[in-house]
């Protein structure tokens, strides 16, 4: 079985074609990069997506060497994410589904990250640390749901890093997080920042405003360098994340951890998770930037998993939403091996909307 997936919940636009075993036939992406000191806004990001989406779909189909006829379903990100960019993909997904007469599957972005991470690494039942520009959650699977153990109570960790990059005018190309990681390697002095763990939850907003003040003061007086601040910020926020992840692992009696999401490809975070997991007698799994960073293949793969287990999104419900929690999705494909082929009621005949 084959699926095409469309992802565009933030500044990355991705289209991928995958087989049900997780083989990726194509996974193309185009990122909206803004000048240093600025971030991506919903309106401009949606314009970027509109400009590139058709050529990316064509490229994905071409690289996969398939015909649209061979596809079993069209999958797209239903949410969470930015409204404007999400809508672009939803419109394109609806159009493709009607043009090619294929069923639609709306996918939760966070669940897609988890499923992609699992299939790429082979980790069967890990505690998941999902860290990106829009999300920060510690997740474990139990009784048909991905349950959120701990999360950020304000901004996401990636957002904290991105906004710090803007303050010190680091480049957004290829991503602010990547440039912070490179700068951090040259940092040596550890500057103390707030360490905010609230129960199982974490908070980053206060750290961001604190480091903003420090940056203004100390950089001017040359008491520390931008590299030192990048280093200290990474050390502090990652230690908070690893601490809550470790507590979740201790609570669930689990020794495996999987990091997904854009921040998940940070090598230092991976190193810290590995040390923690090894001390607990387990191991840490991570994927590289092809799968960690938002992409179309993860939506296609998860959509196909859902499709094979009876999930189909009728055209009239093929909307998108900015708010869509990880624990809202019924995960009915993990208990046993996926049933195949898709049950009868799942087959959906595309209809043109009433005008």
């Amino acid at each position, binding site marked *: 079985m084959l699926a095409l997936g469309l992802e565009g919940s933030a500044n990355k636009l991705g289209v991928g074609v995958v087989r049900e075993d997780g083989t990726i036939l194509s996974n193309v992406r185009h990122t909206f990069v803004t000048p240093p000191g600025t971030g991506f806004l919903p309106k401009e990001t949606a314009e970027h997506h509109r400009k590139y989406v058709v050529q990316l779909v064509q490229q994905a189909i071409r690289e996969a060497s398939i015909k649209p006829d061979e596809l079993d379903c069209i999958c797209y990100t239903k*949410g969470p994410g930015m409204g404007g960019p999400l809508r672009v993909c939803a419109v394109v997904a609806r159009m493709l589904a009607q043009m090619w007469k294929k069923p639609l599957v709306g996918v939760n972005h966070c669940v897609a990250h988890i499923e992609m991470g699992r299939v790429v690494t082979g980790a069967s039942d890990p505690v998941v640390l999902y860290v990106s520009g829009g999300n920060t959650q510690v997740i474990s699977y139990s009784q048909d749901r991905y349950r959120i153990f701990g999360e950020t109570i304000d901004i996401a960790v990636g957002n904290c890093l991105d906004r710090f990059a803007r303050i010190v005018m680091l480049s957004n190309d290829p991503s602010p997080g990547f440039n912070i990681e490179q700068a951090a390697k040259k940092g040596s002095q550890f500057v103390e920042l707030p*360490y905010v763990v609230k*129960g199982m939850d974490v908070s980053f907003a206060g750290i961001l405003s604190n480091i903003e003040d420090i940056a203004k003061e100390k950089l001017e007086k040359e008491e520390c360098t931008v590299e030192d601040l990048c280093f200290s910020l990474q050390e*502090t926020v990652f*230690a908070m994340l*690893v601490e809550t992840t470790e507590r979740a692992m201790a609570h669930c009696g689990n020794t495996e951890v999987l990091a997904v999401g854009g921040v998940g490809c940070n090598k230092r975070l991976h190193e810290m998770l590995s040390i*923690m997991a090894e001390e607990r007698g387990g191991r840490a799994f991570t994927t590289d930037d092809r799968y960690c960073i938002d992409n179309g293949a993860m939506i296609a793969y998860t959509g196909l998993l859902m499709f094979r287990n009876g999930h189909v999104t009728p055209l009239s419900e093929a909307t998108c939403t900015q708010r869509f929690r990880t624990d809202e999705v019924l995960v009915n494909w993990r208990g046993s091996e996926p049933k195949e082929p898709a049950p009868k009621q799942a087959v959906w005949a595309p209809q043109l909307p009433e005008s």
Partner: protein
Amino acid sequence: MADVLGVGAEGRTTKTTMLGRECVVKERVKKRYRHPTLEALLSKRRLNQEVRCMLRARKCGVATPCIFHVDYEEAKIFMSFIKGKTIKSWLQDQPPQEDVVKHLTEMGRLLGKLHDSDVIHGDLTTSNIILSEDNTLWFIDFGLSYVSSMPEDKAVDLYVMQRALESTHTQQDLTDIILKGYKSSKKQQATLNKLTDVRMRGRKKVMVG
């Protein structure tokens, strides 16, 4: 000769004897993943807070192990051994409902006392409360505790407890029973109002407005 009692995310506890008495040694495990400066800072701060909060709890009438000795260099706390069962294992044995109500209401009352003297436990799970043979409830593991008078911190403390109860136990309404006991706290109104706010937290929930 030391028996390992438990290994948590923060440290390990072993049982030994000290001057002829049964003694528990709690050792804070060094986290190698943390930057050494940050690790030293957190370790010192948390060890201090742990000892301070245990003493504060005792002063306000909440039973905690008696501290014999603190080794700051090695980050070890030596304290008295409490013989009994954790509330977690006690609840798993399906005790009669009237006993559940009796002990959990008492737990809530003690929690109220703790919060009234501004001690935030930080890790309120049923594994961290021991029911001893004389039916006394002992609060243990103050490793993440601190002192704060803010309703916010107290509410988060209760919320952590609620989530721990929901994920560990099948019995319903445990939180409600505890909160009934908690109402004896002097400042319960402010904390419980804040708890409603804290429960609403969590990003990307479907909501109106």
